[in-house]
Every structure is written in structure tokens, then in C-alpha cells.
């Protein structure tokens, strides 16, 4: 079996802004041809990590190695083979679809003929060819996301970085976008995607890194993550008068098989591999505290909920 060398190696990456550590000692590898997901809450450091990946920010500590070479050694080259899609559409609304692509094509130093060929090819790929002469401001939100994607692909990058590409899209458009991303990946482009949607991760990503508050929590394949989190069940409790803080404190004081308990709004959330047994004890504790049980719900957690719980625990 041939072991592939990583395309990108992130080693002990640290980045600070105004004395505040935004990324802290992050290390992971991205293999060639995969879709790599970076999951984290807003402000977790995903965007900073991705901008550092493309050389826009300079790391304070650590390094990013692309095909065995530090990206800082030839940043111009790195920029010419990396594509980047931001959370918001990074093109000019006053220009037409084609003009935007032509403009960015020129910025990447492509010949006019090649630009025109790529424009046609990409617009067809993102299904915007019919709208090529429309001003960017005149097309719909989904089309704008696809135009943004097309702009990021105009120079045919080796690595495409997508920063929350489906944010703000309706489910249908999301799925359309996912199909598009898969298609781009199938033509050999390595994709790094940041998202906070576990569904997106499940659909698209091979490997996933979860970061919170600038720290890397876990790295692995989606299957590995699911397997690990499938051991726990999730119990939701609603009580009256609802002294949730005291309930959480009390549950923590008992030596119960509860790896994680918290309260959120008007409910207490408990993760446990032994839901039935633990529920018996919980009811007992609630009686002692004179809390009346209004509602109870036991289920397997989704990846999304697992992620939230994981990041909250880290906090």
C-alpha cells in the first residue's frame, strides 16, 4: 500500500492580533485530492486559519508546508495556485458576470484567450453561462455564490479554500452548491472547507478538524467522529420551577456515568452512554430538589449537537 504524502502540513501554527491569540499551536495535515473540513463556531479562528493558509496573514509561530516547501518562501506562487471563496461574495456588483471573471483572470496573469475559454467552461460548470452578460447585482443569491466560486476557480487552482460557502443559502441551493463542490473536487482540486454545519461536513468532507477559541480540539475522518460520539445519548429535561443551575450542580456532585451535562435556555442537556439507568437517578435527584419534571426527551445526538457540546465543553 502506497502512503500518500500530505499536500499541506500545518505545524504548530500560532497567530495573534493585538496581543490576543486567535490561533494557538494548531497542527494537522491535508492530503491531496480530499475535501478537508474545518469546523468551528463563529470567532473560533476558522477564517484566520484559512487566510493564513493562503499566505494573506503571516503566522507568528509555526509553519505551513505545501508540497514540502514553506508557503512564505514563494508566496506569489502559492497565491497563483490557491483559490479562495470568502463567506461573502468577493466580486464587483457593478460589473457583469463575465467582466468580473475577466478582471480576476487578468489579475492572475492569464492570457485573454485562455480567460475567455475558462469563463465559458466555468460558467457552464456553475450554470451561469446564460447569465454571463448580466450585472452581478442583478443575479440571485445562489447565482452570486456560484459566480464567486467561478471567480475563485478562474486560474484553475490546485487548492480551493471555501470559507462557509453555503452560508445564507436555502436548503435547495445548499445541496446544489454541495454537488458543485463535489464536481470541482472530482476534477482533482483539493478543497479546504470551513463550516459550522455538520450536515455539510457529513456530505462533503473526508477529514475534519474541529477548532474552538483558536485551539484544535480534534482531527479525524467524519466516520471516526461519528463513531466516537455515537456512544453517547442525549437527554433533554424541562422542570418546574426550573433551577437548572442547581440541577446541573447536583447532577455533577453524584458519581453518575455522565461525561457532560449543561443547561441551555429552559432545559438541561445530559450526555451519557447509559441513558435509561441515568434517567432513574435523575428523577430521584429532581424529587429531592422539589423540581417537577415537565418534559423529558432521550435521543442519539446529531453531529451538529455533538460539535456544539464539544466546543462548549472546551469553553
Amino acid at each position: 500500500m502506497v502512503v500518500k504524502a500530505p499536500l499541506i502540513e500545518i505545524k504548530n501554527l500560532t497567530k495573534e492580533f493585538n496581543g490576543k491569540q486567535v490561533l494557538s499551536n494548531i497542527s494537522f495535515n491535508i492530503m491531496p485530492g480530499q475535501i478537508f473540513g474545518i469546523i468551528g463556531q463563529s470567532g473560533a479562528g476558522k477564517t484566520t486559519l484559512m487566510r493564513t493558509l493562503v499566505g494573506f496573514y503571516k503566522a507568528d509561530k509555526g509553519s505551513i508546508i505545501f508540497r514540502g516547501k514553506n508557503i512564505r518562501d514563494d508566496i506569489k506562487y502559492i497565491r497563483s495556485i490557491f483559490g479562495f471563496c470568502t463567506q461573502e461574495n468577493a466580486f464587483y456588483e457593478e460589473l457583469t458576470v463575465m467582466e468580473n471573471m475577466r478582471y480576476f483572470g487578468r489579475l492572475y496573469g492569464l492570457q485573454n484567450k485562455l480567460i475567455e475559454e475558462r469563463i465559458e467552461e466555468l460558467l457552464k460548470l456553475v450554470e451561469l453561462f446564460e447569465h454571463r452578460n448580466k450585472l452581478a447585482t442583478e443575479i440571485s443569491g445562489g447565482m452570486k455564490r456560484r459566480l464567486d466560486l467561478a471567480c475563485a476557480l478562474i486560474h484553475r487552482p490546485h487548492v480551493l479554500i471555501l470559507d462557509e460557502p453555503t452560508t445564507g443559502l436555502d436548503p435547495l441551493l445548499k445541496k446544489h452548491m454541495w454537488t458543485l463542490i463535489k464536481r470541482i473536487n472530482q476534477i482533482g482540486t483539493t478543497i479546504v472547507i470551513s463550516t459550522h454545519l455538520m450536515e455539510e461536513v457529513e456530505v462533503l468532507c473526508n477529514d475534519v478538524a474541529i477548532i474552538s477559541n483558536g485551539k484544535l480540539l480534534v482531527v479525524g475522518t467524519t466516520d471516526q467522529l461519528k463513531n466516537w460520539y455515537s456512544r453517547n445519548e442525549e437527554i433533554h429535561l424541562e422542570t418546574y420551577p426550573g433551577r437548572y443551575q442547581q440541577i446541573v450542580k447536583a447532577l455533577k456532585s453524584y458519581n453518575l456515568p455522565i461525561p457532560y451535562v449543561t443547561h441551555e435556555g429552559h432545559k438541561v442537556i445530559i450526555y451519557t452512554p447509559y441513558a435509561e439507568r441515568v434517567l432513574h437517578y435523575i428523577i430521584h435527584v429532581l424529587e429531592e430538589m422539589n423540581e417537577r419534571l415537565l418534559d423529558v426527551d432521550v435521543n442519539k445526538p446529531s453531529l451538529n449537537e455533538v460539535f456544539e457540546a464539544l466546543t462548549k465543553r472546551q469553553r
Partner: protein
Amino acid sequence: MKKILAVLEKNFKRLVRSKVSALVIFLGPFFLITIIGLAFNSSGLNNVVIGAHAKVNNTNIETLLNSIRSQDINVRMYDDGQRCINSVVDGDTNLCILFPEKIDASNKIQFHVDYSRLNLVFAVLKIISAEVQNQSSKIGEDLTKDLLSKVKITAVTMKSSSDVLDNMRRNANALGYQLTNITQQLDKMSLSMDFSKMNTTELRNQSKEGNKGVKSFKASMDSGIAKNKKQLESLDANLKSDRVLLADKKDVIMELKRNVSIVYNNLSCVDKTYIFANRNASQILDRLKQSDKKDCALLFSVMKVIDDNINDLNDIDKQMVDAQAMITSARQDLLDMERQSRLVTNQTTSGITELNAQLDDVDKTVADTKARIAQLNKSKNALKQQLGMISGKLSTNDQSFAELKGNLDGIVKNLENVSMITPDSIINPLATEIKPLQKNKTKLSYIFPGLLVLVIMFVSVLLSSTLVMKEKASKAFFRNLISPTSDFTFIFGNYLTSIIIIYVQTIILIAIGSLFFNVRLFPIIDGILISIFFIGSLFIFLGMLIGYMFKSEETTTLAGIFISCILFLFSSMVVPIESMQAAVAMIAKVNPFVLSEAVLRQVMIFEGSPFKLPLLIMMLSGYIIALAALSFYYLKFTKEKID
């Protein structure tokens, strides 16, 4: 280059597709120049109304008001002074003139002005002041004529006084000259004598010695003469005895000769054939020797010896006679000598006595002379001192006279000059004529450079800052920055966009100014375009810097307007820089707006090259480089702040 063109194309498309932007860019300057051209394309004041109040109407006031009216200024008369002043406050009039009852130096004409309308006030005041000045001049002219005639009389009197002073000065100079001569003569007069040469002591000693010598001489003479006398007596006696002896001997020899002659004759020695006449003894002797008469020869020789002896004896006798005569003569000489010696001795002795007496007199006279000379020297020095003082006083007097004369001449000259001046030149001492350096210019021509700089400044600052801010606000900005394109491309692309728009606007302004308002600009278009390159670049980079420095579009626009207003207010467009405080004026002089206006004024009003002001061009270039460098720095800084 391809990338710069892409940025340029993108910028223009964005600007043009924003209809309001396009309208502002192209129609803005058109409206601006049209409005300003219509407003300022004249050279006078129109619709100016001034109020006036006079307690008493007289001809002077009427004349003055009529002359003001002749300048196209409306005059509104008020019965009450306060109402007239209030009319300025209310804005009904631009200025109020209050005339006193009597117009003269002590009663002033009052102007009530509203300085908040600074430019207008000064323009109106300028015209009215000129008219008031004219009237004032006419009144002053008569007074001045009278004054000038009196000045003429004074000048004549002063001139005659000056001539008298000249005479006094000449006399004093002559006196001084004489004094100088006397002093010089006194200096030359030497009163010193060498009395050492008048020392009689030596003479007295010599006199004594002489007396002694005379006595000694007399004694030796007497002794010598007596001795010589004696010797002469002895010699004379000897001579006498010797002569007797000689005579005896001569007789003997003569006798001998007679005897020999007899022998000779006896022997017939005489050869009768031989002519003895004219023959000397030697010849005769040789004849005798040659003959056989040896004895005869011998006798002849003896006879000859005897003749010689006789001749010798005769000679000796003769000499003795001579010696006797000499002795007699010597004796006589001795007698004369003795007599002379006595005479000399006597005379010398009496001479020495007399000499001694005279020496006594000389000593007395020398002593007296010495005393007199000392007294004389003392008097001479005193006299010289007195003369020196007099001379000094005369010199001082001369200087005073000269000064007095100079002053008098100066006064006379001044008075003559004054008398030659016309009353008009006193009333209006400064003859002025305003010659504009550039003829046939309207007000618009003069304000055009400032106006153009103002337009360029506001447009450049706001346009470039807006371009930068729009770019920064656009999410595409991030995509630009992660492309393999240098910062220079974006900055230079934005700069080119702005400068092209500035040039377009300038050409619109110039075209409308030239075609419709007769502002002569096309012949100097090259100078204008070069100047605009520097001016436009400066304000574009300033705008870009503002754009990169501030975060929001609103604050950027406010900052652009604020900075532009500061630059505008600290220029001569509102208040002259020279009227500002020294420190502020110093700063204002390096204000980019002021520098830009100076360069454009050089080109547009004086029609010169902008490079005639190399320092200003260098300063503008310095600003451009500094602002461009700061723009680069802030772009890099901005990257870190992008969300």
C-alpha cells in the same frame, strides 16, 4: 501593465455604471465653471447700494455723491444718521456715509461698514475712498498754493543770508591762512645759538701763551740778531783780509805771466802763418804740439794755466766783493729785522692786551645774549600757543560756518524744491498708476488658477478617497489582495483612474472657460497640464491616504472635506496669508494648496512654465512621494484589518 489596465478598466466601469458618479464627474465641472463664469466674468461692482446722511447739504457733498454715482453705485439718502447705519445692519445698503456739518480736517467723514462682508466692503471702500480723496484734494489745493508762495519768499531770504555767511567764511579762512603763515615763520625762526663756540677761556690761555711767546721771541730774536751781527762783522773782516791777500797773489801771478810771455815771445813761438784769431787755446796748443816747438807748447800750457789762475783769482775776488755786498745787505737786513722784531713785539703785546679787553667784552655780551635768547624763546612759545588757539577757534568757526551754510543751503534747496512743487503733487504726493501684469483679464481670469486648484483638490481628495474606500468596502478587495498582484498595481491603478478623471475635468473647465468666458487658456495648455499632473497627483495621494486611514465611507468623506477645507482656508483665497500670525503664515506658505495655486498662477496668469518655480515643483514632488509612500504603508496596514 496588463494588470494595471485591468484595474483601470474596472474602476472606470464601476464609476460610469454608477450614474450619479458619472454625472458628478462630467457635469460637475461644467456647472461649476458656468455658474462661476456668469458670476465673475466682469471687472466692476454691480448692484452696490450705499446709504448717506448729511446734516447740511453743500456743494462739496453733492459733488462727492455725484462722483460716487458715476461709478455705477446707487446712493440712498437718509434723513437720520442712525437709520443710515441700521440700513447696513439690515443689509439694505452695503455701507453708510455720515457727512459732518462742515467738511474739514477736524470733522471727519464717517464710514460705517459691515466687515463680515469683507471682500465687498473693501471693494466699495476702495471706490468711495478714491472719490472722497478727489474732493479732499481739490480743497487742499488752494491752501497749498498760499503755502507755496510763502515758501518761495522764505527761500529767497535764506539764500541772501547764505551769501553773507559765505563772505564771513572767506574772511575767516584768510585770517586762518595768515595765522598759519605766522606760525610757520615762527617755527622757522631759530633762536638757539651755539655758545660753546663763544668760549673765551681758550683764547685767554692762548693770549697768555702768546704774551709769553712774544717775550721769548723778542729775546731769541735779539740774541740771534746780535749773534748774526757779530758773525757778519767777523766775516766782513775776514773777507777784507782775504781780499788783500788775494790781490797780492794776483800780482805775483801777473808777474809770472809777464815773465812767461816774455819767454814765449823770445822763443818765437808765435806762428805768424797761423791765424790765432778765433782759435781756442786747445787748438793753439795742438798746433804747437804738432809743430816742432815743444817748448812753446809747454809755455803755452803754462801761460794758459796762469791765465786760468788769474781768471780764478778774479772770480774769487769778484765773489768776495759780492760776499761783502751780501754781508752789508745782511747787516742791513738784520737791522731791519731787529727793527721789525721790536715793532712786532710791541704791536703783539699791545694786541694781546687789547684782545684780553675785547674778550672780557665778548664774555659779557655772550652772557647778555644768552639771557635775551631764553626770554625770546619763552615769548615765541607763548605766541605760538596763542596762535594755535586762535587757529583752532578759527577752524571750529569755519566748520560751524560750513555746517550753517550747508543747513542754509539745504533749507534753501528744500524750499526751492517745495516752491517748484505743484499744489497737486502735495495733495496727491504719490503719483500711482496701476498696470496689470496681464492685460485684458476679467475677474474670472484672476480667480481661475485658485478655482482650478480648488476643484482639483476637492475632486482629487474625494474621488481618490472614495475609490479607495469603495474598494476597501467591497468584498472583492480581499480577492484582489490574495491574487498574485502587487500592491503597487492597485495603488497605481487607482491613481491613474483619478488623474485621468482630473484631466478630463480640467479640460472641460478650460474648454468652457475659453469658449464661453474668454479666458485665454488653450495657448498655455501644456503648462497647465504639467502643473495639473503635480497638483492632481499630490491631492490624489492625499485622498488615497485618507481612504486607507479611515474605516467607514462617511468618516473618509468627512476627513477629506475637513482636510481640504483646512488647506483652502489657510490659503490666500479667503484671507491673505500675510495677514495671518507669523507662525501660522509660515506653515501656510508650505500648504500644498498655496504651492499649487502659485504654480498654476505662474502658468495661467503670467503664462510662464511651471518649472520657473523649481522650488515649488520640488516641494510638490516631495509631498507626492511622501503621500504615496504613506499610502503604501497604510495599504499594508489595512490588510491586517480586513474582516
